[in-house]
């Protein structure tokens, strides 16, 4: 019986043949924690005794959620992580000036590669599936123990094939693809599964589109969202100086427990209404929905192509009076690119606030919290009750193009309406 990409990656990292449903101890290539989950990981690690981490180059500590530290507690947490990183000589420790959102930074740093097995104490660690890695979110104890041993336990997941065909129209992005998918299969539709994205339509999805899609695999329960390797992946890795990686392809007779086909040419602008990511609708079917705030950023849509799209729509215009529009570049690298390309200037001239890279409002942390009954259209990934602030506030998930168009009108708007 042939193997899926997930089965191949787990077999390689377990040093034995494993298949879906097997429990296994597997070696990991990277262990990631952030400022929320990291302190718990480190405390557990330290309880093991006075030991060294398994590999000081394979651990990433990215203090992104409440950065720049929003209060005393978060400052204490980062201080603890900083001391730990120093004491253990950990190479990849990041805080303001150098920090961005972990899932934007890890690929930029070349830490995510095809065929890798990556765990992160953050549910959106699945983002790196875009690069043909098996990467998945775990808990703090998992990450803390893996920092010591370099491995952890897994149940090898069954796979769910997502075949992409066709070509999308302008302004349709990875966000529309993934919201459409989640709307179709539901928040539990891929629970415990590895999604595997393949098909002739892949060539029409940029690497940033893919990051967005893999990022939200967790929103339909997916353990991972792995893309096939192709010339788009190769180009991205080449630009980072990564040559000839060990990519993984499924066998022709691999077994999938589920499958779905998405035709890009049939997609329209898709938004997800409160309070669940699978509560999706086509924007044309939406009644006029006024918003108080627009957020463009996050590990889902805080990359340079997202900002380019938003800037193209917003530039030479003013954001709607009374609307708060907040743009959060995903990393210092993205920020600098946006600055050099003149995008930041366009946002500021239009009346948007541009923030230092941070998760900030995405999880209701800081930098854009909603008051009672306020509505925000956001390029983030979760619209749960209270996610961005007051339990009676609402978040509508959308693509950067829709968020930018809405910034101009004050209600949720299709980009075609303003361009």
């Amino acid at each position, binding site marked *: 019986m042939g193997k899926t990409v997930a089965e191949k990656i787990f077999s390689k990292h377990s040093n034995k043949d494993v298949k879906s449903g097997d*429990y296994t101890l597997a070696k990991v290539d990277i262990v990631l924690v952030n400022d*929320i*989950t990291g*302190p*718990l990981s480190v*405390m*557990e690690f330290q*309880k*093991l*005794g006075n*030991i060294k981490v398994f590999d000081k180059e394979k651990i990433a500590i990215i203090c992104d*959620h*409440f950065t720049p530290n929003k*209060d005393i*507690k*978060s400052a204490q*947490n980062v201080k603890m992580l900083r001391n730990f990183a120093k004491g253990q000589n950990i190479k990849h420790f990041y805080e303001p000036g150098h920090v961005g959102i972990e899932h934007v930074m890890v690929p930029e740093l070349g830490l995510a590669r095809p065929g890798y097995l990556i765990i*992160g*104490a*953050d*549910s959106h*660690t699945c983002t790196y599936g875009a690069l043909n890695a098996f990467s998945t*979110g*775990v*808990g*703090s*104890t*998992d990450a803390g*123990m893996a920092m*010591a*041993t370099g491995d*952890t*336990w897994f149940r090898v997941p069954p796979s769910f094939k997502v075949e992409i065909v066709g070509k999308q129209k302008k302004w349709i992005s990875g966000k529309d693809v993934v919201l459409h998918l989640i709307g179709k299969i539901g*928040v*539990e539709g891929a*629970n*415990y599964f590895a999604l595997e994205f393949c098909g002739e339509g892949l060539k029409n999805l940029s690497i940033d589109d893919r990051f967005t899609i893999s990022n939200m695999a967790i929103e339909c*329960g997916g*353990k991972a969202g792995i893309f096939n390797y192709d010339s788009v992946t190769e180009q991205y890795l080449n630009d980072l100086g990564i040559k000839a990686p060990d990519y993984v392809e499924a066998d022709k007779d691999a077994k999938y427990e589920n499958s779905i086909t998405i035709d890009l040419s049939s997609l329209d602008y898709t938004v997800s209404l409160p309070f*669940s990511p699978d509560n999706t609708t086509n924007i044309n079917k939406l009644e006029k929905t006024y918003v108080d705030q627009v957020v463009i950023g996050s590990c889902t849509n805080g990359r340079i192509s997202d900002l380019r799209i938003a800037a193209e729509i917003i530039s030479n215009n003013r954001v709607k009076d009374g609307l708060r529009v907040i743009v959060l570049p995903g990393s210092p690298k993205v920020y600098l690119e946006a600055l050099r390309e003149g995008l930041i200037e366009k946002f500021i001239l239009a009346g948007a606030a541009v923030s230092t890279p941070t998760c900030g409002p995405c*999880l*209701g*942390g800081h930098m854009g919290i909603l008051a009672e009954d306020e509505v925000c259209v956001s390029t983030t990934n*979760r619209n*749960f*009750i*209270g*996610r961005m602030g007051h*339990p009676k506030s609402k978040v509508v998930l959308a693509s950067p193009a829709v968020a930018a168009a809405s910034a101009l009108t004050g209600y949720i708007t299709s980009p075609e309406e303003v361009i």
Partner: protein
Amino acid sequence: MILEGAARLFGNNIDTDLIIAARYLAETDQTELGKNLFRDLRPNFLNEMKKGDIIVAGNNFGCGSSREHAPLAIKGAGISAVVANSFARIFFRNAINVGLPIFVTSENLDSIEEGNVISVNALEGTLINKTKNKTYKFDPYPDFLLNLVEVGGLFNFTKNRLEAGAKNA
């Protein structure tokens, strides 16, 4: 292991933001976390519940973020176990890892009412609603997980491995 307590009912898709909201995440102590359990969803929950109570939920309990703070807050508030028709994957893992007993059953639990006294027998794989005298079955843990649970979670599992490794070295 037999756990007994009053049933506290929750529906489907209880996400980790509802279990413990992000604004409390700078905290790491489980007792402190427990003080804000279900703060937005059921503001009065902590007054209603007693130590040892058992959460009974529907599908996809614990979906959303990977915050281990969620099972920790549940433990910290004094809940003794969670029974559900299904759990989100990371929550399941975290609960096993931190030693919060959780059980999956495919049986329909609709007839359990808030406050019914239920008892869970982990070895036999049974859940008894003592108030209504009704018994349900749940899936036993696979061997690998049973081993993890028996040693008390991932920390002890790892400590044992490291000690065994050091001895071999």
